[in-house]
């Protein structure tokens, strides 16, 4: 009975818990593959930078339209895309590499955002923008999150092959005339979109946790991209579910509870992960004496 009370009842009894759960499912489906691609492209800190970069857009929208999700999402999207495109442009036209130019732009953008929020709003507003409240997700914002996830998955399906090719061997893709920068920019736009999706529920700073923690954990379990994505989505959704329950039962803030749960999954994966975790690496099983059969073609 106690299990029912603490695990099932919250979702049956409260609409906001159900919406929060669905929101975290939608977020997991979008952020899982994006995070995995960021990890594989060695751009794990990119999501972090972008999450800071979207702040001024959201802050300006907050000043103009108040606490309106569509306005703040749109503002965040515009600011994020501007920073991503400017950083990409600068790295292609000057001596600076992309990480350096991105660092320059996102820090400027972050300072601008904090300046705007602190000039006009109170600290409470700033906290709301930075950390979000998944329990306040309503119908329209749920629809927005679901739409962004769907768009993400569809777009990824279309540009999957060039994205993977560019990741694996960028020179080859250029040589066969497959472009490269176009897909990179579309991908950056998807990163920003998914951060905006996590905006209302988790806040600008926490949203990136839903993207990177499950993906980094998945790298320690899976050996190919597809299984990495599946593991990442499962970890992300599991963290959403467990984090919400923890937040309900122990009366903790929902966003950090979810991200902390993902963080625990990440720590657990570091220790136990079958693909290069600590335990398999330092307590290896004995080697084979006959070569294992290679699978048939």
């Amino acid at each position: 009975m106690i299990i029912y009370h603490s695990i099932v009842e919250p979702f049956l009894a409260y609409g906001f818990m159900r919406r929060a759960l669905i929101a975290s499912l939608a977020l997991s489906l979008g952020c899982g593959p994006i995070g995995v691609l960021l990890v594989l492209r060695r751009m794990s800190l990119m999501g972090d930078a972008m999450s800071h970069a979207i702040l001024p857009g959201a802050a300006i929208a907050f000043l103009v339209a108040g606490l309106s999700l569509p306005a703040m999402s749109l503002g965040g999207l515009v600011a994020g895309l501007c920073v991503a495109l400017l950083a990409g442009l600068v790295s292609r036209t000057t001596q600076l590499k992309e990480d350096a130019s991105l660092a320059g732009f996102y820090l400027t953008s972050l300072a601008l955002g904090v300046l705007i929020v602190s000039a006009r709003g109170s600290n409470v507003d700033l906290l709301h923008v930075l950390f979000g409240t998944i329990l306040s997700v309503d119908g329209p914002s749920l629809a927005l999150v679901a739409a962004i996830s769907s768009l993400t998955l569809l777009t990824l399906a279309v540009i999957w092959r060039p994205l993977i090719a560019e990741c694996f061997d960028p020179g080859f893709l250029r040589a066969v005339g497959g472009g490269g920068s176009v897909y990179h920019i579309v991908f950056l736009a998807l990163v920003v979109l998914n951060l905006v999706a996590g905006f209302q529920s988790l806040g600008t700073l926490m949203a990136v946790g839903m993207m990177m923690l499950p993906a980094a954990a998945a790298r320690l379990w899976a050996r190919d991209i597809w299984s990495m994505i599946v593991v990442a989505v499962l970890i992300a959704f599991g963290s959403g579910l467990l984090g919400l329950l923890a937040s309900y039962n122990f009366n903790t803030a929902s966003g950090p509870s979810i991200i902390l749960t993902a963080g625990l999954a990440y720590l657990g994966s570091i220790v136990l992960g079958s693909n290069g975790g600590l335990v398999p690496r330092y307590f290896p099983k004995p080697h084979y004496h006959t070569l294992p059969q290679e699978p048939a073609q």
Partner: protein
Amino acid sequence: MQNLPGDVMDRLQGPAASIAIRDLTVSYNRVPAVHHLSGDFPPGSLTAIVGPNGAGKSTLLNAIAGVLKPDEGTISISGLAPREIAYLPQRANIDQTFPISVLDAISLGLWRETGILGSTSSDGRSRMIAALARLGLTSLGQRPIGSLSVGQFQRVLFARLLLQDAALVLLDEPFAGLDTPTTTDLMHLIGDWNGHGRTVVAVLHDLGQVRKMFPRTLLLSRDCTAWGATPLVLTPDNLAAAGYPPEPWPAERQRAGAVQ
């Protein structure tokens, strides 16, 4: 080397590619790496580019492949579109830890047929299997590329080149760091490419290998020292003019003597 399934490498359809270079200069920060170079790679030829370090060999290949823009002069390639060049750079910027299988990696060689969205046809798939067999990789198709040795990985890159089925093949130091059996296998493959009407240009440093296998040579030392039939190009005088040490090593001389 396995028996070749017939469909791995068909005779080239259409005209062979030729490259005409006229007064080509390519420079980095105004310092020319290739300086006023003129000459031709005839259709269906097999040419080695040799020269000391910093002679502009890789720069020339990059310029032919369209990666670098010439400062002056022209490179005209007849008989194909730019993307019909199969180019193997010296240090391909490849992420070897990327979780992708050997089969998926070589499937990129079919890019011209599949493009962004197209699926691999059954013909493409059987060509992939045949390419693996040609390079002795049959049992490794499902392996992640990260688990391959240096030689196996170079074979994978050659399998991908094979699938590209291009009229012009550019290779930059394709045998660097490889053992003799692998070098021999890959050298045979290059010979077959050429035998099937493809134009092959390879940057090499082993002069014995060049004398044995490459009918034509371009000896480069920023300026063109000599360009033509290999025995006429790799003479002691030309080599000295290109900045090679005056006396070749004994082994080098022995192999050279066996050919001349």
